[in-house]
């Protein structure tokens, strides 16, 4: 899982440092530090750019969200028969990624709706989105979502029920993950985030996911996200 995520990060870095997006437009500001996530809210409408966008979103999900699934994947494997544990993991991940891709479609649709105003919106989407994400950190809904990310689920041992339960578990975790991290992820996508900003947000979500004090970690995340806002302004 970490290897997969690592590969996604390498691909992301490679695309970002290859002189901006390969699919039209250039990073805002033109500096290495502000190179945009390829395919994300790029200035100038382009069907090719829109086609890349879901791929870029998927790359971001694999890089940033998959490390958060280590716990539930271990649980899935441990609660499956040994001979089907790899299948169980694949089923879980398929549902997890599918839910995130569906969310990506919503983000892309929002980007399309914005249309001609895209450049203006993308200028403010990231800082505004990060502020919103910071505010979300301290709400009880965020706390509940973070806890739900750690929920275990009973899995049938074999047959179609086992497939159903693994898919359901992956989808359930993804929905909780979306509620927990979705605002920040949408901000990164709509706001043409830099590599630095992506890394900052990743560190926040990973720390709060694995912290022994999730409430304190979420509160600390507020400060980090607000610091990220100053980076992008």
């Amino acid at each position: 899982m970490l290897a997969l995520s690592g590969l996604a990060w390498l691909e992301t870095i490679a695309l970002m440092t290859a002189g901006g997006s390969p699919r039209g437009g250039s990073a805002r500001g033109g500096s290495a530090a502000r190179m945009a996530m390829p395919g994300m809210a790029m200035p100038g409408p382009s069907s090719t750019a829109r086609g890349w966008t879901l791929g870029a979103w998927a790359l971001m999900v694999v890089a940033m969200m998959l490390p958060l699934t280590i716990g539930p994947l271990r649980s899935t494997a441990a609660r499956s028969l040994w001979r089907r544990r790899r299948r169980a993991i694949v089923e879980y991940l398929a549902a997890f990624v599918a839910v995130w891709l569906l969310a990506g479609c919503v983000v892309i649709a929002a980007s399309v709706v914005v249309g001609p105003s895209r450049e203006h919106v993308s200028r403010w989407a990231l800082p505004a989105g990060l502020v919103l994400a910071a505010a979300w950190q301290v709400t009880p809904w965020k706390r509940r979502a973070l806890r739900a990310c750690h929920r275990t689920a009973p899995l049938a041992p074999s047959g179609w029920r086992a497939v159903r339960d693994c898919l359901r578990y992956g989808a359930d975790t993804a929905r909780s993950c979306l509620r927990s991290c979705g605002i920040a992820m949408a901000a990164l996508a709509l706001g043409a985030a830099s590599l630095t900003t992506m890394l900052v947000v990743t560190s926040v979500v990973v720390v709060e996911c694995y912290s022994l004090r999730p409430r304190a970690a979420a509160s600390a995340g507020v400060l980090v996200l607000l610091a990220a806002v100053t980076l992008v302004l």
Partner: protein
Amino acid sequence: MALPGGSTSAQIAARQDIWALAKWDDTVLWYARAVADLQTRSISDPTSWKYQAAIHGHIPETEKLQYWNQCQHGSSFFLPWHRGYVAWFEQIVRAAVKKLGGPASWALPYWNYSNLSKEPNANRLPEAFRERETPDHQPNPLFVEERNPGVNNGDVMGGEEDEHDVSVAALDQLVFEGAGPGGSTGFGGPPTPFHHEAGRSGALEAVPHNTIHNDVGGLMAEFSTAALDPIFWLHHANIDRLWEIWRTEPGRLDPSRTEWLDFSFDLHESEGNPITFTPREMLVTTAPPLSYEYDNLIDPRTKPAAAPPVAVAASVPNVPQQPPKPSAAPPEMVGASQAPLTLSTEPGATEVPISEPTGPITQALASEPHAVHVYLNVENVVSDRPAMSYGVYLNVPDGVDAHERPDLFAGVLAPFGSAQASRPEDPHAGAGLHFTYDVTRLVEQQRADGTWNPSSARVTFLPRGRTPDPAPLRVGRVSLYYHR
């Protein structure tokens, strides 16, 4: 770090078995008076009765989040957190006793409900807690109307004569922290609740901690109200004492991980000032900030004739011996039920199809089969309010009353906390509770007498206890694991 509260080494408080005291011994009477005093204090006062109870569990109110609702269950912090919680409560009560004119040496008694070989009434609620009035004809603060039927009449815990609910078999656990999912939960519980093993209780927490909570019932039946019943504190003093007994056994070691030793919790001391404590600071009860000891640390199962001449009365440091070598291979699931099961006031059962193991455990089965244990797991147990306890049985033949087969008994399922663990806002995020039973002996017995079916197991749940209007209990899954 020196913590406030506690006594000097010359003022170690001696906790006594309440059943060894007269009904209204001074210790008990002063406790009642102090409880009454604490109950008059405002809930915003950290030394008040309600505030202390809210620490254990409460519907969160934003201004109290740091101190309330922080009770540690289903993790290896269960014992050290409760030790600190009870110790500082004891100091708050002692301060109240002193204020009221009582002895400065007052110590919280413990309820040794397992001591049946020496005290036949041990598994009945102590008498002072059943009286509606104190000796001076005042309403008795130790009496709580809302307990399970029969408890205030002195019925045995759970209403059963089999003594399973007060068993101290947990003392036989060799390691403190358990294995991975499906295997032993250890004496003290698995590492931390905030990961994907939430809801698994250590052996001591499961029995007798959870069983007594369920058997007393009423306020004791839920996290959020349990500490409002004055018997709660004597119950937890005994759980704490059982930890001390376990630690005196050769080879029994507390966790040495710094993540466990140095994890900090927040409470208030007897003056209401905030303090922070760690499990590391909870390991020697006779030293400050704890400064208490037990009048005896004898295993309750010890028969009177075999009792040592001098009881161990001081906190004994762990004997530095090697714990059992943990297995490198994780527990392996060999079977599970296909569908959830709902338990009610009638017996219920489910089938668990079993497969041949195919993972690393096969090596252990080939080379050292005697070292492989079989664990029965009852997983993701949820309810919307307090539910009754169940006896769990392995392979009771169809059509046979499980009462007639005590030889097939696997353990008690006491779902204390199931309602809270079923709520989405709870740390368990609604996943419920998880129970584990070592059924190795049962399986070996059934293999020997030819009644073990290698392709399927039948697990029966027999209602026990007297929970009034119990909620249905939904069991997500029943599974079997092998682990070396």
